[in-house]
């Protein structure tokens, strides 16, 4: 059977619309994931603050220990049993963001803990409060070390976002499947979808590499 890409070309506009939904969802989830990851990662630095530590650790354990698809379905199909009906797009962003946040928090924690203890001690011995020292001394240095693993996490997030097509969200995956349902051209359309994801992840990789180079050039790295 010969390949026939004409359904891809005629559905090109729909695929691009889907791609933009994928980008929107991923970008919003990424912001949410980073904020949650930062908060939870910092929350897990001091086990002696028991309540905060336990809450943050529990979050990471549950989210990392269960499938993303199940989490998304719980939000979208499970919560309506309590009459909590969230819009699909909202569920997608929240679900992906919460999921990503668990992984980002481990990246944040690891990067912060890799900064020499002496940096914090020097800051505190100048009279800086813990929060100020964390913001002005530790986090800027930790950020540089976070970038490579964050790159991995962002790429994973982009690819995982394909699951939100199952929440009736019209992302690129969903749009592609609609084209397949009328054209039966699975191979061609899935190849096109794969290409879209590849372009998105590639652009993310390049952007992060730029940022890292920029930070290194600024002397942020020992």
């Amino acid at each position, binding site marked *: 059977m010969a390949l026939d890409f004409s359904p891809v070309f005629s559905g090109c506009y729909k695929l691009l619309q889907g791609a933009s939904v994928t980008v929107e969802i991923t970008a919003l989830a990424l912001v949410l994931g980073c904020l949650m990851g930062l908060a939870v990662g910092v929350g897990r630095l001091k086990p002696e603050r028991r309540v905060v530590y336990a809450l943050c650790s529990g979050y990471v354990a549950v989210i990392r220990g269960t499938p993303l698809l199940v989490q998304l379905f719980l939000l979208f199909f499970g919560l309506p049993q309590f009459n909590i009906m969230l819009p699909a797009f909202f569920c997608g962003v929240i679900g992906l963001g919460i999921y990503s946040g668990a992984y980002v928090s481990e990246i944040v924690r690891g990067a912060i803990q890799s900064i*020499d203890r*002496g*940096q914090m*001690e*020097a*800051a*505190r*011995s*100048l*009279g*800086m*409060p*813990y929060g*100020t020292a964390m913001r*002005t*001394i530790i986090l*800027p*240095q930790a950020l*540089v070390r976070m970038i490579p693993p964050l790159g991995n996490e962002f790429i994973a997030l982009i690819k995982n976002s394909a699951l939100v097509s199952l929440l009736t969200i019209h992302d690129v995956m969903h749009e592609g499947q609609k084209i397949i349902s009328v054209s039966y051209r699975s191979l061609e359309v899935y190849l096109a979808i794969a290409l879209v994801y590849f372009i998105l992840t590639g652009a993310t990789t390049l952007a992060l590499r730029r940022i890292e180079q920029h930070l290194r050039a600024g*002397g*942020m*790295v*020992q």
Partner: protein
Amino acid sequence: MKTQKPIVHIRGLRKSFGDHVVLHGIDFDVAPSQVVVVIGPSGSGKSTFLRCCNGLEKPDRGDVEICGHSLCEGGQMLGDQALNHLREQVGMVFQSFNLFAHLSVIDNITVGPRKVRGVSKQQAEAEALVLLEKVGLEQKAHAMPASLSGGQKQRVAIARALAMQPQVMLFDEPTSALDPELVGEVLQVMKVLASEGMTMMVVTHEMDFAREVADIVVVMDGGVLIESGPPEVIFTNPTQGRTRDFLRAILTRA
């Protein structure tokens, strides 16, 4: 000047890490403008002693009073805010410099005054340049720490501590991480500070510095203060056998 009210006043200071008792009840006073050099074999608790003086380590028991404020009373630490405030008055210089790696030399010096004391950028930089000149590094103001030699890093670290206008300076083996040829430049800066009347507590293995600059030499071993006195007494006529053993070991090393 040794009759003045002490600026550092320590009674019954005890500190342990787990089961390991590092400091067994230290009593010690430092008068304003005094230079105290703490010597002793490694593991004797010198650094812990110093770190208890600005709350980097929390004592288990005892009283630590600095600049008229109680840092620790009966093992109870000062609250966070008051502790931060007290630390502004106690400068600390570390063995491993601990310059902020992402900040230029001048930003390393100004970050404390700006973030903690709310000094304007302009004023903080003007003051920082004066301090850099004092440590002989005004031409390095915009260099990054990674490009400096160890001796230069330590001089910047001293300037950074001085920028907070402390009343007491703590030096935790400030020259131990330096190549031998760089030790002199750091000690020189410390000598100038001492001559200007800064109150200093210095943990060091530089016996010549101790002999030349110290008002009081303190010998520690096994977490206790075994002997203290003017350097001419400690170095020529120590009363304790352990002091003699330590000095013999360290002075015949070269």
